[in-house]
């Protein structure tokens, strides 16, 4: 034992001890700040020394960092501990449908016959993949009563693009190319006007402020003589968590003026298995597979946003769709349907998400899906009923699958929606959607989903009541400091935007 080197007395001076790492809370450097290792985290066979035939000088130094496998694994596992997720707890983010993501979906999507097939293989070698897509098309058509389905859009906003382009193409083909106005209520998701603008439409806003709904009067005023109105984009149930009660009359007027009804499907979880959008006048609708049909959100994607359309719009949806000839499945060929509004994505969509969504649909079946929407609506109404004395509910219930409150009561004591959101973090819960919809001041939009038990809802309600009581008691300062226990405190978003630093640079470190 005498041969041991003496302990370096100065080790604390030479090694930086990080005071933010305590217990199970890790401070984790950037990957690029770790020691550069001699060998990478993969062992690849040696090159044979074949002379390059790229016709170009071979790149010498790239400047990528290099670490070993255990360092990589530890780095990302430590990063993961800084994330809140639906698997860790209640995630009542309104309009986002953060429901349980079943693992069987992941297992099935990783079967080699799905994961390791190429989008350009001959159809005869991918009949099983095409059958999955065909079956999903049928499920969606049946659940929406909208018979034309295109699975290619990559996300909700991409589905909107597909749907609005379908409407544009329909008008052009029918000699109504002059119709250049899209009606959008002020409660709409920002993607609705952004999409319509991308498709060259002018936006005309329908005000909804007083009732939280589109009224026949407001609609008529926005419609005018309707000559230039191409369509209307409405989320139903809407972003205030309310069903548009006048929708039947509104859609009749819209259709008489030759416009199409685009329904944003973000809130389909309130309807699935129980109510069919095709039966209340919808002409085209996108479905977020990552919301209603449980494919994981993955920290912001990948999503999938198929569109479903009425018979009248079927000729115009993007290509390709899956068709069945006798017993054989195939993709539409290029140019097979000349009235199509075109190709919107490479290949045929986020197939891995199609597999997951179909797996989920089969798990629930028609009976389970009906229970999904009923429980989702029941849970939201329960929260609405239990919290409406503590928080200002701008609109009367019953609500659909989400409950909307505002900061009105708390604001009197200087506590804002943002403070309440950060307070929820302090109590170990993910906040609701905040400051959306824009039609009320300081919105808090709560969507519990059907995969929460009463026990979990009661825990959330208890925390919200505690926050309301703290605000009533004037503990304002406490709120402004929230969160104190999260991996980081409130972040300076202004600085991030004013001095954008979007990548690591060695010199700057």
């Amino acid at each position, binding site marked *: 034992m005498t041969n041991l080197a003496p302990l370096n007395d100065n080790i604390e001076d030479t090694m930086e001890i990080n005071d933010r790492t305590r217990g199970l809370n890790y401070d984790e450097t950037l*990957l690029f700040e770790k020691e550069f290792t001699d060998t*990478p*985290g993969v062992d690849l066979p040696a090159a044979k020394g*074949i002379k*390059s*035939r*790229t016709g170009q000088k071979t*790149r010498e130094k790239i400047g990528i960092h*290099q670490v070993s496998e255990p360092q990589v*694994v530890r780095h*990302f596992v430590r*990063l*993961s501990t800084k994330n809140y*997720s639906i698997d860790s707890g209640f995630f009542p983010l309104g309009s986002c449908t953060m429901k349980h*993501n*079943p693992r*069987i979906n992941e297992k099935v999507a990783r079967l*080699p*016959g*799905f994961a*390791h*097939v190429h989008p350009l293989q001959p159809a005869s070698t991918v009949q*099983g*993949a095409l059958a999955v897509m065909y079956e999903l098309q049928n499920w969606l058509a049946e659940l929406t009563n909208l018979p034309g389905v295109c699975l290619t859009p990559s996300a909700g906003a991409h589905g909107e*693009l597909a749907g609005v*382009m379908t409407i544009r193409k329909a008008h052009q083909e029918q000699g109504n190319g002059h119709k250049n106005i899209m009606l959008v209520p002020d409660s709409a998701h*920002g993607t609705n*006007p952004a999409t319509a603008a991308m*498709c060259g439409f002018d*936006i005309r806003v329908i005000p909804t402020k007083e009732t939280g709904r589109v009224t026949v009067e407001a609609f008529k005023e926005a419609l005018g003589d309707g000559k230039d109105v191409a369509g209307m984009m409405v989320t139903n149930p809407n972003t205030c968590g309310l*069903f548009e009660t006048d929708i039947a009359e509104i859609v009749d007027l819209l259709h008489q003026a030759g416009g199409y009804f685009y329904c944003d499907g973000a809130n389909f979880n309130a309807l699935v298995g129980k109510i*069919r959008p095709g039966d209340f006048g919808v002409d085209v609708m996108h479905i977020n597979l990552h919301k209603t049909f*449980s494919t994981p959100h*993955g*920290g*912001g994607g990948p999503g999938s946003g198929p569109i479903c359309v009425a018979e009248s719009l079927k000729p115009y949806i*993007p290509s390709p769709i899956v068709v069945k000839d006798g017993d054989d499945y195939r993709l539409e060929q290029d140019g097979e349907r000349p009235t199509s509004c075109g*190709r*919107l994505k*490479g290949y045929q969509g986020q*197939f891995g998400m199609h597999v997951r969504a179909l*797996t989920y*649909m*089969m*798990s*629930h*079946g028609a009976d*389970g899906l009906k229970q999904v929407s009923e429980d989702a609506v*029941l849970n939201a*109404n329960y929260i609405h*009923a239990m919290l409406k004395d503590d928080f200002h509910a701008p609109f009367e219930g019953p609500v659909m699958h989400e409950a909307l409150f505002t900061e009105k009561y708390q604001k009197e004591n200087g506590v804002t929606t943002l403070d309440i959101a950060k307070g929820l973090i302090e109590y170990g819960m993910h906040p609701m959607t905040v400051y959306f919809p824009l039609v009320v001041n300081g919105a808090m939009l709560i969507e519990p989903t059907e995969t929460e*038990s*009463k026990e979990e809802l009661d825990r959330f309600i208890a925390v919200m009541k505690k926050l309301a009581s703290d605000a009533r008691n004037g503990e304002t300062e406490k709120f402004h400091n929230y969160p104190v226990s999260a*991996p980081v405190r409130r972040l300076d978003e202004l600085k*991030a*935007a004013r001095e954008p*630093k*979007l*990548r*690591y640079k060695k010199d700057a470190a």
Partner: protein
Amino acid sequence: MRYLPQTNAARKEMMDSIGVKNVDDLFIQVPKKAFIKGKTNLPDHQGELQIERKMLAYANQNINAQSNRFFLGAGVYYHHVPSSVDYIIQRSEFLTAYTPYQPEIAQGTLQYLFEFQTFIAQLTGQEVANASLYDGATAMAEAALMAMRVTRRNKICFGNDIHPQYCEVTETYLKNNDGNSYTVTEDPSKITDDTACVIIQSPDFYGKPHSYSDWRKACDEKGALLVVVINEIVSLGMLAPPTEADIVCGEAQSIGVAMSYGGPHLGFFACREKFIRQMPGRVCGETVDADGNRGFVLTLSTREQHIRREKATSNICTNQGLCALAFTVHMALLGENGFKQLAVLNHERACELADALIAIDGVSLKNQHFFNELALQLPQGKNAGDIVQQLADDYGIIAGYPADDRTILITATEITTDNGIKALANALQEVL
């Protein structure tokens, strides 16, 4: 139903609290005619075992690339993915998180996005990158739209053989607005004063690497942007980075992401720093928290739809988060030496494949220069589509993509084996 935790007793209690007797009382706002009446044509719920059996039967109807008789590329590539990658992306905290709107409890997602952006910028030789887009095709379409915003012009020029589906998608996006148009020319002197950008793919659709100096010069003269599209990102381990470009975008599926019959894949987008306020998609930036410690947030959101509504740069509100994570983990494992080595292995396998195939009578290469994809010219009178179909039907070989009547695009990667090359060469010889 296993995903529904509510008990009947709890449902009853909750209805009592709300003050309704029946769940349908909560749906009174909905018109009666919209309710599903009676049974639908859809089956009732099933257990895991039944579903696994059904889906496995579907999966087994497909020929998958693990057969080692697989040579198809054309924009989507079959590469080996280290085991750690899938393990990490299946961690609940990554898999089941939302877009990081609450940064205090989403630093895991935000930090890997920052690292992803760094990797993309380093590989492409660009100053900045965004947090990913849907796929290569939509990334190219977004690049065209961005060039039009920056230059306030509305004409796009396709400068070489670009993936045809990328062009189709761009065309779809362009025709949304009257006045937008595109031209196809391989002659830099043909671009005009109203050209917003020139788009060059490298390696091009037929596998040939390109350099950009002539195009750069022409773009500078006419005030147009130069956009470089890359759909085999592994090529950047051997080829020079397109530092001359104003925008570099494309597909990064090759690193960490399965082919998955076409998606989800990983669009990437990098550009010069001066254009960041015109860049589409989500961006992550570094900042500090209330205690002055480093942290990350989504930033530059004033470009985006939830703030700008109809004046936004794009309607996009997601990225391909989990695919970007897979890429970042795989890149971290590869490191400088591993990534370059991977590129060399791909190229060497392609050289060996090329030698084996051109030994067949009447077969030649369209391009002498390539990275990992060959454009194989068949003899007169042979149809590429028929040959590919025949090789699949009779030999179980996925030989490649029939790019035109007599050309098959054939790819080798580090996964390609000697036996696989032999099997393809023998089969091709027999069918020709």
